[in-house]
């Protein structure tokens, strides 16, 4: 604790310097049952990128919400230019020039890009919206972000990555002095991240102060000037980023050695468990989302799927899970053809999917932890007519301890859990169906380092138990560390296969770009279109 106190004192002294624009001083925030922030002081330096890191539940988001006026601190104060300010609502924050890009996409899907960018800040002339001016500015903002998005397009019609760009454009439209970015890159491609970074540097040059939160640690070091680490609601470090490396951050974040992040036990790979032949998913209006995909998965094997967004990886597991009845192709499980096409039949056959969007597809937010877990396998706990409470209870308790889900009481609502623990509940729900093929679609997205490591451990253990694991990830390091074999997809087809030994970051990236580059675009209308967009 003394180390933390020293940091605290150092931060206090730093604040006396003139270049601190915004300062959260001794902030304490108490929620019923927990202290989210305990006496945290956070300095935002003028025209710098101030990085904030910590595991989920460390208090980053709470601190940001306080600075954005969404939450009020229990104790402590916020100083802007050395003067105390009160932020009672998001509107107050906007008035002081504090903008925020939220972690969850906060857009109105039913409105157009322009309408979203100017929501609650409409450009109006004598009370009437000036659509022309709005569209003009929106177009400029989008161009500044080097994107090709129609300002009149509905947000619901955009890809997630594009939606995130809109979210960023929305913040830029506000002419802010301080811009908070909470995981702005979680849905962006590498090229889009580059553009974002360029915009951030440009903003810095204009004197805008950035607060940047991300789980991608390399990214933080690349863009950050100052780094602040929170752990369990306490401030543990506050330093300039020069001379800091990833292990240093992880150590501060989790308080232990980062080498243990990827826990991969050696496991024996068995016989072919699943054979997929010519799996094809037509795209409406021609072409394929999945173009005659065939592969094999062995028992006890972790098969990684790498690819860019939209490469068809999620479509593939959706098909296997039975969520796309229009797909064609043949599946053989242990040599026997799987006939059923519906989700229920596929679950019965032994397929289970842990979906990419945990909040939307994986959980019922109004139900408790226990009920979420049991949802997919209720018929196992039936006694002719009734659900047997005791049997349910046993199953739930067993999985909570097996997966070490941190929960005070299984009757607790699912939303009160941290992201990592929610993800474990989704995995538990899948395991309760007694599957043979477990499909994990981006299982570590948006969860903290500690929880990631636990998810990897679970994966590894399941492989050891003879499950076949399909593991989709966009994080190269993860996929390289965890997979026994890696398939790379691009444009609906498998474009590369690598064993654990042959795989490297370069090879995966190269295979994932097949069909995207100019050299291959000759016969692809799509490829040409893309080039236009970038030029």
């Amino acid at each position, binding site marked *: 604790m003394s180390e933390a106190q020293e940091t605290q004192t150092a931060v206090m002294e730093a604040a006396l310097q003139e270049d601190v624009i915004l300062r959260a001083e001794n902030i304490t925030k108490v929620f019923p049952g927990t202290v989210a922030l305990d006496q945290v002081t956070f300095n935002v330096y003028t025209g710098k990128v101030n990085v904030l890191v910590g595991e989920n539940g460390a208090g980053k988001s709470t601190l940001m919400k306080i600075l954005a006026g969404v939450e009020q601190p229990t104790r402590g104060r916020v100083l802007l230019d050395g003067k105390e300010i009160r932020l009672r609502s998001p509107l107050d924050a906007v008035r002081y020039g504090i903008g925020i890009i939220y972690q969850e996409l*906060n857009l109105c899907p039913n409105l157009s890009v322009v*309408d979203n960018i100017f*929501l*609650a800040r409409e450009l109006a002339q004598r009370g009437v919206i000036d659509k022309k001016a709005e569209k003009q500015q929106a177009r400029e903002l989008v161009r500044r972000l080097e994107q090709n998005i129609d300002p009149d*397009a509905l947000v619901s019609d955009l890809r997630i990555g594009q939606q995130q760009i809109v979210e960023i454009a929305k913040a830029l439209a506000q002419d802010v002095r301080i811009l908070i970015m909470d995981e702005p890159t979680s849905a962006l491609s590498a090229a889009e991240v580059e553009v974002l970074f360029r915009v951030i540097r440009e903003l810095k040059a204009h004197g805008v102060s950035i607060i940047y939160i991300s789980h991608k640690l390399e990214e933080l070091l690349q863009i950050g000037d100052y780094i602040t680490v929170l752990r369990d609601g306490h401030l543990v470090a506050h330093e300039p980023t020069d001379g800091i490396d990833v292990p240093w951050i992880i150590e501060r974040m989790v308080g232990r050695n980062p080498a243990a992040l990827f826990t991969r036990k050696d496991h024996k790979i068995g016989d072919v468990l699943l054979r997929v032949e010519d799996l094809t998913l037509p795209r409406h209006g021609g072409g394929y989302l999945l173009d005659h995909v065939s592969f094999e998965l062995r028992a006890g094997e972790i098969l990684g799927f790498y690819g860019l967004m939209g490469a068809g990886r999620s479509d593939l597991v959706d098909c296997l899970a039975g969520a796309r009845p229009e797909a064609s192709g043949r599946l053989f499980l242990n040599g026997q053809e799987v006939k059923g096409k519906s989700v229920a039949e596929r679950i019965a056959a032994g397929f289970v999917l842990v979906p990419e969007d945990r909040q939307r597809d994986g959980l019922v937010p109004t139900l408790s932890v226990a009920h979420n877990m049991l949802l997919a396998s209720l018929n196992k706990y039936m006694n002719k007519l009734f659900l047997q409470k005791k049997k349910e209870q046993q199953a739930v308790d067993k999985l909570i301890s097996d997966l070490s889900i941190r929960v005070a009481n299984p009757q607790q609502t699912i939303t009160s859990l941290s992201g990592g623990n929610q993800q474990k509940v989704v995995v538990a729900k899948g395991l309760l169906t007694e599957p043979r093929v477990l499909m994990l679609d981006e299982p570590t997205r948006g969860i903290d380092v500690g929880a990631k490591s636990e998810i990897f451990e679970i994966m590894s253990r399941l492989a050891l138990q003879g499950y076949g694991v399909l593991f989709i990830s966009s994080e190269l390091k993860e996929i390289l560390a965890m997979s026994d074999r890696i398939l790379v997809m691009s444009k609906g087809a498998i474009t590369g296969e690598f064993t654990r030994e042959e795989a490297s970051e370069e090879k995966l990236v190269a295979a994932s770009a097949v069909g995207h580059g100019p050299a291959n675009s000759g016969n692809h209308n*799509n490829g040409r279109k893309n080039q236009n967009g970038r030029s």
Partner: protein
Amino acid sequence: MDAAKATPIKRSRRITKTDIQQFLLRGRAFIALILVVVVFTSLSPQFLNAENLVIMSKHVATNALLAIGMTFVILTGGIDLSVGSIVGLTAMIAGGLINEGIRIDALGVIVYPHTWTIIVISLIAGTLMGAISGIVITRFNVAPFIATLGMLYVARGFAGLRNNGYTFPNIIGRPEFGNTGFERLGAGDFLGINYSIWIMAIFAVIAWFVTTRLPFGRHVYAIGGNERSAELSGVRINTTKTIVYMISGFCSAMVGLIIASQLVAAHPATGETFELNAIAAVVLGGTSLAGGRGSVGGTLIGAFVIGVLGDGLVMLGVSSFWQKVIKGAVIVLAVIIDQVQARMQERIALQQQQEQM
């Protein structure tokens, strides 16, 4: 650099089958209206004569007015079940003021307000009832369905209490009190078109302007689409929502006045089940009950479809029971088509995304 023009997202392409499908589905309410008109004209020659059209428009006007107010509410994802009762209560307020005036016991006098004053008082009363619903919904966090269901009973109850369940008959005022002329609201016309139709048209234009051109209208859509996002963007959720119920209350009061004036009497049961017709018109017009999607123009067409369907079936002598069956089927069918269109749109969007990548 003319990048925006150089990278057109909507490429010009040949009209495909999907385009035609899309067009038909988008304009379905309008197509339905044309279909209904054509069918009835062929079955009954006098259907399309001017006199009949005016009568039908008059019938449509009241429902359309309620539906315009309802559109605002439903766009935010709410619902207003109290409109019919507010119609009844404001009719009784207006009728009472004309026939009985305001008794001021302290001075021992009865004040008979001018007709215009009465109209204004009634409109304010209706708006206030909407405001109460809005406040109950926003400040006390009551579901709109429940809050307005409560208002449905309360307002209807007060409508009965006002005159012990009796009608205020013959509400034409008396010249010596200076409160005559109320009946002109329902019977009068301008350029040969009934006032109620003008009022509907004016309200519709204003509502269209508000929903498409004012920040308020955009906030209404935003709340219906993603309330949290709207809140975090700085939209004043509670105020906006309350205003929406006030608009609905105001429209209901207007309808109460028109009907009382047309009948030259105020009956406490005026407007019973009107809320259902209004909701039906909104939904038929393509507004999603989940909020965020829809338009005033659609609502107007929806109101016309329901009105024309009703009057046409009456003219053909179809039994009132069958009328209900047909109306119900049409409403459900409309929503089914709505779903089909939404799915199709999603598919097209997906396709465009793929093309862009």
